[in-house]
């Protein structure tokens, strides 16, 4: 694969908050069509890494890029190809109804797949007339995922997208991602604590520990290294001993 196939690139990225170093010399390359799971303990720096990638945080040193463009100054065309679901989605003060919020989001993009959005709303039992404020945390998370999927981006970045979802919604969400990856070769990076989900979906894993990426590579290689009988959670616990 050539350089043009690289969608995400982090080179010697470091980030601190005051005296506390959160990321230290992070190197990561994600190629087109990859599903990469990002695992780490609470406070390991997963969100910081994701936000640095999106240009929402200023790096102390190093370079982050998306589609070959510097993350700190992403051009509009790159943002059209990007779908981002943050950890917390308590925006818009809840005054908008779900359908209004989705209509509003659609204006941002050149293309918007309304059929898909309606299908997901129905599938995930979200009342389009409900006010965003009145939804549960899990339902809000679902709406945020739908908001990110409507314009069918080439790259998804999810920051703990399934943390508030029930098992049925989680399964459905994962199935959706797998279908997307198979049908369109969509690239995905998502952080999660639920390692069993990662095992279902991710081909590659990045493990953050002590501000550094301790492992980046295929899930099967990781299992081979630690023993086939161990699942990802066991390996993660082993790594964090």
């Amino acid at each position, binding site marked *: 694969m050539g350089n043009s196939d690289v969608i995400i690139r982090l080179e010697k990225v470091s980030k601190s908050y005051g005296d506390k170093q959160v990321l230290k010399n992070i190197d990561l390359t994600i190629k087109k069509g990859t599903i990469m799971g990002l695992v780490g303990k609470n406070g390991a720096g997963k969100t910081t890494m994701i936000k640095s990638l999106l240009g*929402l*945080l200023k790096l102390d040193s190093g370079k982050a890029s998306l589609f070959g463009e510097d993350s700190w100054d*992403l051009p509009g065309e790159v943002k059209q190809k990007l779908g981002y679901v943050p950890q917390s989605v308590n925006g818009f*003060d809840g005054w*908008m109804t779900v359908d209004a919020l989705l*209509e*509003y989001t659609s*204006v941002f993009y050149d293309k918007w797949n309304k059929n898909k959005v309606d299908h997901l709303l129905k599938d995930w039992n979200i009342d389009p007339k409900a006010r965003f404020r009145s939804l549960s945390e899990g339902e809000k998370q679902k709406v945020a995922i739908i908001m990110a999927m409507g314009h069918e981006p080439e790259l998804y970045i999810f920051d703990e997208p399934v943390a508030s979802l029930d098992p049925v919604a989680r399964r459905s969400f994962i199935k959706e991602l797998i279908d997307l990856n198979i049908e369109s070769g969509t690239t995905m990076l998502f952080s999660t604590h639920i390692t069993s989900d990662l095992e279902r979906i991710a081909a590659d894993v990045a493990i953050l520990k002590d501000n550094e990426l301790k492992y980046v590579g295929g899930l099967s290689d990781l299992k081979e290294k630690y023993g086939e009988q161990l699942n990802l959670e066991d390996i993660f616990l082993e790594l964090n001993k």
Partner: protein
Amino acid sequence: MKLIFGTIIYYFRSYTKFNIILLLISTIITCHKIFFLGSGDSLFSHKDITFSKFIFIVIFTVFMLGLFWRILLILIESFTSDILQMIPEIRKNTLYLCALILSISFGWAIFIIGAGDINILIHFSILNLWIVSLFLTIVSKALVPIYRTRKLWILKWIFVLFSIIIPIITAKGPSRHPRLYIFLISTFLIVLLYQLINFIRNYINFRTDLISNHKTPGSKIDKLQDMIENFYTRRSMKTIDKLKTGQYSKRSTSLVHIALFGNEYLFLWLFIGLITGTVYVHFIKEFSPLPLFVGIMLYFGLVSLQVTYMVFRQKFKIEFLYTSLCLTRNDFEKLLLKTVIKCHLSRSYKTLIAILTAVVINNIFLDAVSFIPLIIYIASVYLMQIIVIYMYWYNIISRRDYALIKQVNVIKYIS
């Protein structure tokens, strides 16, 4: 006693900065009273009004409203926090604590105001009781009912009526229609007493079942927020439709405006209106351009604070806008700056018209000549505001992180 003491420490530790600011303000006001005013002069007396006296009236008003706000937060937290419900008799002790704070504050306020002028004292007490009633009604909307049954909806309408009348009649005093004055004040006090008794009873007994979800006439007021939000949603949808059909050329500006200012934060507007209104009624009797000048400056400051709060209260909004708008960082920052400044100015301008209308109505003796310095004052404040706001927002937005640091700092600063 041990429990009350523990409750005091707990509530002092939560919102520490806010508590320290309140304590500092009260110390400054007390020093001003002791060393500058002395026992003979009341802070609220209209005789020999000076610039510094006016400033202290403003500070005093802000303090009293801040104190009520703090008490409201204590009441809400003790009722809603699951962890606090585990403490025996927490709600009873919270009410004791609030009563203690209110009593001490009222005693202190009387010392500051001075007991010499009974009319000022009555005016002050009624005005503060009105604010207590207003805050109780705010709590009752979602938390603790202040009526024993849902059928007493008529009291809600009486309260709305009194919300308009009470600040005005207490400022005017009983001189013109003493009987009507006494009747209105007494009715208001009876309604307030009724609200207070029910509030205390329902608060201690943890009664939430009286909050109506049914369509009774009384629930119409509770639905006010819903109606306003529906209005904003409809308005936003119209704009969205126009944007989709390409009728609006300013696509990005509209999208940012809807996200940041699509909805008003009603309580904050209420708070700002309260401060301005309370400061203003003190000066209805004797108009002077100086207090108005300071009042407008204060008002603009509060509008700025409110706009800042609206922008940064939900950091997801900024992140969402940045990652979704097809703009470079530079263009996004320019757009954000432009939208925020426009919002500042339009809000100040609209409310300014309302203030000026009130001035004209309430001060019929204000002749055409007095308007010239007034307009010069306002124009200069307006110009100053534009410069300060531009510098402030340029510094906040320009080349900064959107995700964490800035928002956290601003929110911390505001709260």
